[in-house]
């Protein structure tokens, strides 16, 4: 397993907000972490990134990346892991780009911070953009001149250029139109299939999880209540919470048969 989380507990003071007994992410696998607001899925993501302390939380337990324990690393060591080996994209890609710099300068800066020369960075950026089906001309524009879907793909391109092993994607398509969402999902599938990237896909949208993910873990009240192959969990849920969540998802199929 590329990422192995065991007995991970996230607390604010004495209050426990998430406890993950056992969770893993394999090579070339997309695993969904699904649940409602407040279920603890985003806190779990922050803990994996080694950033939980920035919001005042404390973390105990074990997070291993290719066998190496992350929780005992110093912040300096973690900085190298974060971004380069574990990349992250979020719901609002605009927040990842400073509005006053051209997109290209943000991308190149990220690549150079992780040790690439100027020439290497420019070449890696151009290649990565092609992979997410964007013209390299976008690098000369400002973030405000790009659509949300384009910016999200640029954010993914940074992860590709750095050859990240794991992509943490926290609600990456929730703010996008369905057609654009479908394109971003295609890009994520392509990364898994052609590059062997592992994706942890955090979402409240079970229909998207069903379309994209190989496996899924359902979170509720800070715990994983059920996990397994996505088709199995979402077609024959064992936990009543999962069943309730599934029943609440509106489907356009219902309308077609009305």
């Amino acid at each position, binding site marked *: 397993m590329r990422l192995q989380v065991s007995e991970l507990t996230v607390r604010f003071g004495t209050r426990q907000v998430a406890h993950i007994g056992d969770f893993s992410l394999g090579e070339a696998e997309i695993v969904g972490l699904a649940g409602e607001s407040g279920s603890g899925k985003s806190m779990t993501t922050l803990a994996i990134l080694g950033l939980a302390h920035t919001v005042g939380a404390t973390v105990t337990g074990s997070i291993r990346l290719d066998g190496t324990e992350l929780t005992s690393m110093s912040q300096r060591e973690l900085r190298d892991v974060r971004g380069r080996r574990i990349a992250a994209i979020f719901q609002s890609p605009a927040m990842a780009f400073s509005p006053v710099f051209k997109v290209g300068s943000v991308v190149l800066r990220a690549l150079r911070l992780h040790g690439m020369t100027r020439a290497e960075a420019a070449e890696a950026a151009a290649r990565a953009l092609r992979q997410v089906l964007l013209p390299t001309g976008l690098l000369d524009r400002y973030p405000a001149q790009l659509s949300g879907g384009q910016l999200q793909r640029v954010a993914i391109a940074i992860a590709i250029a750095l050859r990240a092993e794991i992509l943490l994607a926290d609600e990456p398509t929730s703010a996008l*139109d369905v057609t654009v969402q479908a394109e971003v999902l295609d890009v994520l599938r392509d990364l898994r299939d052609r590059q062997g990237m592992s994706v942890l896909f955090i979402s409240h949208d079970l229909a998207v999880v069903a379309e994209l993910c190989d496996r899924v873990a359902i979170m509720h009240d800070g715990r994983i209540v059920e996990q397994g192959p996505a088709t199995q969990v979402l077609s024959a849920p064992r936990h009543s919470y999962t069943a309730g969540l599934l029943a609440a998802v509106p489907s356009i199929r219902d309308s*077609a048969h009305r």
Partner: protein
Amino acid sequence: MTPLLDITELAVRFGHVRALDGVSLQLAGGPSGLALVGESGSGKTTVGRAAIRLLKITSGQIRFEGTPVTALRGRALKEFRAAAQIVFQDPDNSLDPRLRVGASIREALLAHQVVPRRLAGQRAGELLAEVGLDGGFTSRYPHQLSGGQRQRVAIARALSVQPRLLVLDEPTSALDVNAQARILGLLGRLRAGRSLSYLLITHNLAIVPELCERTAVMYLGRVVESGPIGALLERPAHPYTQALRSAVPEIDAAGRRARITLSAEPPDATRLPAGCAFHPRCPFAAPRCTTETPLLRTVLPGTVLPGTVGTGRLVACHRAEEVLGNGPGAGAG
């Protein structure tokens, strides 16, 4: 029968941007529902705001119960403001954070003199009960409520002035799936119980059937197709509707459609393509589509006017017959 809302040839320009062009839509008296669907920038929100006179229209006509809304003044305008209400996506921005929930509703009741002052508190409680919130909520502040509860308060406030038209602008987009399901259930009951007409603006096709009989698909400021929601999704007549349908994620693999990938990004609204605005992205595009703007026409017969409960299909596409014959939607179900 006069439609409750009758929009004809509506155009709205913001400077050089043509936000809406040639939009005609009708909504019947309640209970009824018309959904406007489309991507960001399609103009659906602009239609909703124009319908309740929240923005200035460039040309065209909007009639509410037969009267042009742009001509309303004084008392008649105030009555229209009560009769046509709106519920926004984000109740954080529509509720005053400094007012307790009860005060927020009393404010609306008194502004429109719906009840005498001494009865306002009691009526506010009744309205909250109607949206499923008990008396304890009147003394709470918006920040003490969940997103779903805040949206219930926004609905109660809209209902307080006894509207006949409710514009619902992405009413559940900010909510979790469980909260969404409860709000949709509530809106469905209110529609029947209060005989309301809904103009539902949404990017989520899946929530349409619960609230609306008829749907208009918008693309870059124009209506490209309209019809009953079920038939529209099962057998789209416009290539854009087809692509939109195919992009909707489904839990059940049997509900999924072969993805139709649109070839390019949506064009810049300040420089719209000639002919059909959709042609640069359209898999069916022919030479004619690059020069001649298609007008809405009937392709599948049925009643269309007046109102929303019609069964007919209107589409603005030169090649609709081929789309109906060949698309992934054809022969499904």
